[in-house]
């Protein structure tokens, strides 16, 4: 029987670790702390945990149930429910393809930073010297050394999405390495994935713990942690807070890509996925909160260091301008001195105004950053100030790599599992199919290593998977609740687990989650329409900072293509299946008429 020859996880632990490895990814580290900071610190936990309860856990449970019951990838599973729904699985696969294309570039950057950490002086610690050896490179002076290293030496970024240079060879090499490692991890399907996830799921926690201890003991870290935990409850009145909490839970769990269905399809039929769903969702949210504490400790340290450097510069300026003895101004009395000098020598202070900076700790703490900016710029800036920075740098980027690779395992499995269900492909060996998929993704993804690659990356990141996933999961939960039927679904679960899901699950699936998703969906559409021309952050090398720029015509067209291409799979496949069936019916009719014609012909002959 086909089902018996399907691969299986060696143990339920492997399945749980695979789900944890997939769900706990870079978003937990670089998106959640940002949201926490933007939406009221500790107070953000209220909408976050509420959304976990209302949509996170029920939808996670739903996808695992579908996968374990159908024992097929996303396309096969939905086709089994109803042939017209195959498009839903196909939309998941298309979205997964987009994700695979651009996600591995982050791993390439992590590799780049990791390899560059094996140096005496970290390359992002100080500005490189210009050709005349008179001072640092201008672009680096206007920005900061960490920004220069990321935008110029890592990405060699062009000034807009329209300008394109060649491929950055270092990047391309790291990208190749990232895909080779992905291939190595998935080459034998769940047999190899199952062993790898023991490491990719657990080691990041070791690093996070080490960083927590290191972070809290850093000078000034307490400022950051205090800042995070002071709740600003007025933010809860802002609807964006609730919407961001809902979207964060949704994307953080990785729903809708088909990865969970794929992973669950390799389970034993009677595996207790209900408990596992709750455990994984709780671990995922717990990790977000944990990494939030670490990030804020690091923020606090960085803000304090910057603030003290600012004070030091002000002190030197005052000492030099008024020729005071070196030990007269110290960190403690610097503000008194400023006011004293302001009253005694107001004109000289006025002359210094353009050089005199305003040093404000609150302002340093308020700079909220998310995404690659947080991971690669802010964190590396904090690391360079720590004692023994090479060690901390290696640890940190290795953790980022594990988080990214763990998520990649799920992404690639989401593509390969449905493909293997097709008879055409099932004759190919695991290794060959995986190799072909990895090679294709690598070649297509090389575009992200060009000089404008980061802008394309941002486009894919913002539009490639967000909208389509909401749509896919909304359709999923509606189909299961109203077409397949809650009663039938209950029976299936009873068959697998031995007991029916209780009223909480049923209310969530039938009522709360679909309503929440519809709300999110409408909000996204309204936001998109109201937002005007979509914009991106372009790096201006003359000013040394990012500026908001409009997407050009072809950029907007491509965004439209990204959004439409995955969503349209659903109606198009339904149409295709409809036409196929019609064609089949016609053929059957013709055969029957031929048969009856022959029969009647024979009768006539006999007569």
């Amino acid at each position, binding site marked *: 029987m086909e089902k018996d020859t399907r691969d299986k996880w060696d143990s339920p632990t492997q399945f749980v670790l695979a789900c944890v490895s997939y769900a706990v990814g870079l978003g937990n580290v670089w998106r959640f702390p940002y949201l926490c900071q933007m939406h009221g610190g500790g107070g953000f936990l209220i909408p976050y945990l509420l959304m976990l309860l209302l949509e996170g856990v029920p939808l996670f449970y739903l996808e695992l149930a579908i996968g374990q019951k159908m024992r097929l990838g996303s396309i096969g599973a939905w086709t089994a429910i109803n042939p017209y729904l195959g498009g839903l699985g196909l939309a998941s696969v298309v979205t997964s393809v987009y994700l695979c294309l651009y996600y591995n570039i982050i791993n390439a950057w992590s590799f780049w930073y990791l*390899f560059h950490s094996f140096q005496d002086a970290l390359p992002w610690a100080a500005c490189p010297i210009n050709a005349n050896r008179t*001072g640092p490179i201008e672009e680096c002076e206007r920005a900061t050394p960490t920004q220069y290293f990321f935008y110029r030496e890592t990405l060699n970024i062009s000034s807009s999405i329209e300008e394109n240079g060649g491929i950055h060879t270092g990047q391309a090499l790291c990208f190749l390495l990232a895909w080779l490692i992905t*291939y190595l991890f998935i080459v034998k399907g769940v047999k190899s994935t199952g062993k790898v996830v023991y490491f990719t799921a657990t080691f990041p926690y070791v690093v996070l713990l080490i960083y927590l201890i290191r972070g809290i003991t850093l000078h000034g870290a307490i400022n950051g942690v205090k800042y995070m935990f002071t709740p600003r409850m007025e933010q809860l009145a802002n609807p964006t807070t609730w919407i961001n909490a809902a979207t964060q839970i949704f994307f953080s769990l990785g729903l809708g890509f088909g990865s969970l269905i794929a992973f669950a399809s390799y389970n034993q039929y009677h595996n207790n996925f209900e408990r596992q769903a709750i455990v994984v969702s709780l671990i995922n949210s717990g990790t977000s909160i944990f990494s939030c504490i670490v990030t804020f400790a690091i923020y606090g340290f960085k803000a304090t260091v910057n603030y003290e450097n600012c004070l030091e510069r002000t002190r030197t300026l005052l000492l*030099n301008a008024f*020729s005071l003895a*070196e030990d007269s101004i110290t960190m403690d009395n610097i503000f008194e001195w400023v006011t004293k000098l302001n009253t005694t020598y107001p004109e000289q202070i006025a002359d210094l105004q353009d050089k005199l900076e305003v040093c404000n700790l609150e302002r340093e703490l308020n700079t909220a950053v998310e995404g690659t900016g947080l991971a690669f710029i802010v964190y590396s800036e904090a690391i360079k100030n720590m004692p023994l920075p090479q060690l901390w740098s290696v640890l940190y980027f290795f953790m980022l790599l594990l988080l990214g690779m763990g998520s990649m395992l799920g992404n690639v499995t989401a593509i390969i599992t449905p493909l293997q269900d097709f008879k055409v492909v099932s004759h190919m060996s695991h290794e060959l199919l995986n190799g072909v998929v990895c090679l294709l993704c690598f070649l297509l993804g090389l575009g992200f290593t060009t000089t404008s690659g980061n802008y394309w990356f941002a486009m894919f990141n913002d539009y490639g998977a967000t909208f389509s996933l909401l749509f896919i999961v909304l359709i999923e939960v509606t189909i299961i609740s109203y077409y397949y039927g809650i009663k039938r679904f209950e029976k299936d679960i009873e068959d697998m687990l031995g007991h029916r899901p209780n009223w909480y699950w049923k209310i969530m699936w039938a009522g709360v989650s679909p309503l929440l998703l519809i709300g999110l969906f409408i909000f996204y559409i309204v936001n998109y329409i109201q937002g005007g021309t979509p914009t991106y952050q372009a790096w201006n090398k003359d000013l040394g900072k990012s500026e908001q720029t409009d997407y050009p015509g072809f950029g907007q067209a491509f965004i439209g293509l990204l959004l439409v291409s995955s969503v349209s799979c659903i109606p198009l496949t339904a149409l295709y299946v409809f036409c196929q069936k019609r064609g089949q019916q016609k053929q059957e009719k013709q055969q029957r008429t031929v048969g009856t014609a022959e029969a009647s012909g024979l009768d006539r002959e006999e007569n």
Partner: protein
Amino acid sequence: MLKRIFLVICFLVICLPSALAAQLCIPNAPEACQVRLSIKTALGEKAYEWNEHEKFLFRAAMAFAMRKHKEQEFSLSDIILCNETVRVSFWFVVTSPLNPSVLVERKDIEKAVSKFRHRINGAFLLSDTTLEFVNIYPTLAAPVVPNTPPWLIVFGVVIGLIGAGIVFLLTSTIVQKRRKKQQKAEEGDEDIEELEAKTVENGSTSEGVYNTTFSDDDRFTQM
């Protein structure tokens, strides 16, 4: 009378140079350079006090730098300091050894300082930032460029390991498959041997022609 004249001449001889020197060293003059020392910042507790002896050392160091740069016999009296502050900053001018009333041009001083900056810094246990010659920018040390960038070495090691891993996994899969095929082929052979043995057994007792219809040979009846 003679005594008074003698005293006046002595007075002029002693005081004139310093008066002249004071006139030559004017802050913000085109030939004057400002120097700023941050001894406490650089040395912390081991900081020394800025006094006459340190000033003497400075003049000696500057005279040394000018000697080496211009290859003229500069002496201590050619370096004139003025306008000292508590910051520990002061101005200085350099007079030419050939004519004490002529000042050396600023650009010569700048070149001399740039060339022998490290020697002057060393004399005071300071660095380019803590012994600051205002408006004379230090030439920064050339960056050390290794033959192979270090990241490439680590990259090479990692990709070598990964490549070896992939090759190992793929070859072990191929080897396993071949073994399975061989096993299947061997099992197939054994079946044939078993059947032949059975038919031979039955046919050895010469009781007649063996009726194969009832033999265990399933192969022929299976579709």
